[in-house]
């Protein structure tokens, strides 16, 4: 009983801590995006609310709540309200299996900076990641707007196409690491820097990166919300906090996708050439936590960098890239990786 109580306290503490940090970073990602856009475009970005615009996030949040809740006539009310929450939740659920840091020993008890180290972590991510599309297509359909519907349709076909490519990239990774658990994958990448999967799976990394951009519907794959073509896509009719949830969900998705790139290909929380100490204290835990976020923030910056540089694809070009280039490349990658492992007798051969 005591053991269960301690377990509950430990997991809730880690959960609340991680959740608060995640939400703060996501909220400031919206500000960061605008600041970075300003940096790229020779302008200031938000700088009125607070020093360097730091209170802009609060101002935005207040504004979202104060705005009129507008429901279009003849929209499907129930689905219209459920859709944004669904998108937000599906993005947030990804948080559960991501290893935010290493284990540490607090008061004689080993605490893992990860909500759940399940042995099918990657499958969980693929499964939950695909759920996000339901929120978008439901929102697009329930709005009873032609542009919204087109946004929803674009989004569903795009996500389904790129999930396959993403899965194929991950299969090659799993062959190498011999485990579905994200913690095992990170542990495999500790030690020297060339242990990082990005050096052993360069093609897989590229496929995964492109597919992640498409999954998070960021430029150049932001067709579901291409404002010049279909107004605002699936959230054309959304206003106030319902829109806020869509937007927030998108940033959560982007943050966790960056975290996933860091975890799978860049050693997650591990520090190159530094091994876990025998008695990892709270300092070690927080250090690995910081390293994880540093890597994640870098990839978030890459997401934003690309957004303010590249034009977007056309619908048919997007499909061509997904089905005719990435999927064959992914299959080839698996084949080559399998041959190499057969030759060397890697981890997957045990």
């Amino acid at each position: 009983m005591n053991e269960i109580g301690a377990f509950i306290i430990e997991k809730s503490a880690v959960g609340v801590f991680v959740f608060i940090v995640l939400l703060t970073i996501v909220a400031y990602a919206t500000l960061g995006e605008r600041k970075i856009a300003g940096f790229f475009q020779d302008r200031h970005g938000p700088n009125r609310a607070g020093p360097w615009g730091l209170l802009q996030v609060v101002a935005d949040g207040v504004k979202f709540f104060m705005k009129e809740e507008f429901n279009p006539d003849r929209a499907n009310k129930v689905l219209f309200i459920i859709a944004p929450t669904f998108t937000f939740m599906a993005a947030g659920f990804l948080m559960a299996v991501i290893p935010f840091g290493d284990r540490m020993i607090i008061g004689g008890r080993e605490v893992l900076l990860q909500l759940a180290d399940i042995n099918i972590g990657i499958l969980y991510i693929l499964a939950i990641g695909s759920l996000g599309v339901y929120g978008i297509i439901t929102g697009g359909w329930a709005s009873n707007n032609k542009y919204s519907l087109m946004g929803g349709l674009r989004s569903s076909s795009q996500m389904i196409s790129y999930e396959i490519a993403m899965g194929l990239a991950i299969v090659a990774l799993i062959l190498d690491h011999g485990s579905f658990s994200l913690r095992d994958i990170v542990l495999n990448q500790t030690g020297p820097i060339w242990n990082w999967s990005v050096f052993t799976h360069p093609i897989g990394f590229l496929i995964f990166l492109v597919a992640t951009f498409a999954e998070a519907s960021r430029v150049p794959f932001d067709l579901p919300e291409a404002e010049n073509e279909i107004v605002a896509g699936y959230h054309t009719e959304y206003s106030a906090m319902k829109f806020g949830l869509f937007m927030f969900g998108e940033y959560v998705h982007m943050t966790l996708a960056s975290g996933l790139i860091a975890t799978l290909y860049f050693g997650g929380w591990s520090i190159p050439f530094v091994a876990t100490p025998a008695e990892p204290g709270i300092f070690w835990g927080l250090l690995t936590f910081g390293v994880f976020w540093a890597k994640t923030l870098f990839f978030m910056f890459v997401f934003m960098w690309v957004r303010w540089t590249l034009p977007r694809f056309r619908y048919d070009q997007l499909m061509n890239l997904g089905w005719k280039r990435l999927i064959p490349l992914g299959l080839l990658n698996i084949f080559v990786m399998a041959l190499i492992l057969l030759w060397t007798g890697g981890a997957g051969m045990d």
Partner: protein
Amino acid sequence: MLKQVIDRAIAEHFQTDEKELYDLNLGPSHPATHGILENRVKLDGERIVKCEAHIGYCHRSFEKLSEHYSYNQVITITDRMNYVSSMANNIGWTLAAEKLLGIEVPKLVQYVRVIMLELNRIIDHLIRTGILGVDAGAYTGFLYFMEQRERAYKIIERMTGARLTTTFGRVGGLDKPLYPEFKEDILEWLKPLPKVIKEFHTLLTRNRIFIERTRDVSPMTEARALEYGFTGPNLRATGCNYDLRKHEPYSSYEDFDFKVILGTTGDVYDRYMVCMDEMVESIKIIEQAVNNLPDGPYHADVPEIFLPEKKDVYSNMEAMIYHFKIIMHGINPPVGEVYQAVESPNGELGFYAVSDGGPNPYRLHFRSPCLYYYQAIEEMLEGGLIADAIMTMSSINVIAGELER
């Protein structure tokens, strides 16, 4: 017997299996139509099967309105046509009125008009190519160009006192003498432009996604473009060598050395490249004009047409009489008609005026290039995707204010 049944079944099957098309109103208020243009499209998935273009949301009957205005007042109306490069309209109309009156303006005025026409061509092309990038999803380059446009507005504001509705020049010359630092301002404005254009090229022109989005999108053959009455960059993109600055030089364009930029296929990419390269040529023209800027009066010596300076009106008997005559009786050109066209940034901008000898034009017609481009929009959009439609509309640069007048 059996064959008939099967045939009928097949016929019925295909009749009922006809695809249901999706109606969508692309406009009149849509983020990418840049003005109030409406395209009713029938969609099969994302592909446009049929397109119906509707205009008339922005008609302000400028030509009729102008019949009640004096020749100088019409300049204010031309401001509101192509508001992206309003000085080209002003200059076009003043040239037409001068042709009607038979006035030869001094060389200085002609050169300043060339400078302002080319400056307007540059700022029009800046926004035009920048917006094409925005419609393709690349926002950043647009702001690099907007910054240069903003710097040009500083000069325009200093010359005329306004940014968009410039009302530049008068019939018979400029409205006032050039301000002293005019030359330096123009040269300083030109200085960073080649670098910015080059930066934009590296950002967009050689980008694989951008090329794929624009290459072979809504191509136009030379013959078809001429049938529609295309002019300007959109015609030159098809390979037709037609530029009024070369073929019917006005305002001393024959003094300057520049190339006419031509494309080959007339697709979105060619239109974009023609505009990008025309900016470089315009920079050359402006440099030549500023460096050879002659001295002289800022208006022709036509006291019965050009208003005297205010200080003369109060001190000089003759000036006061002319002032009274021009204000009360207006400019009265001889009976006749005139057509004067300028190569505005958007194409051949023509002014047709009929005079009955009175102070107001008897009848006017403005030939706006956009109207001719927009006729072709149905043909260009059909068969393409929605994303292509947006790129096409953006690349032909239809300005609703000029299209409908």
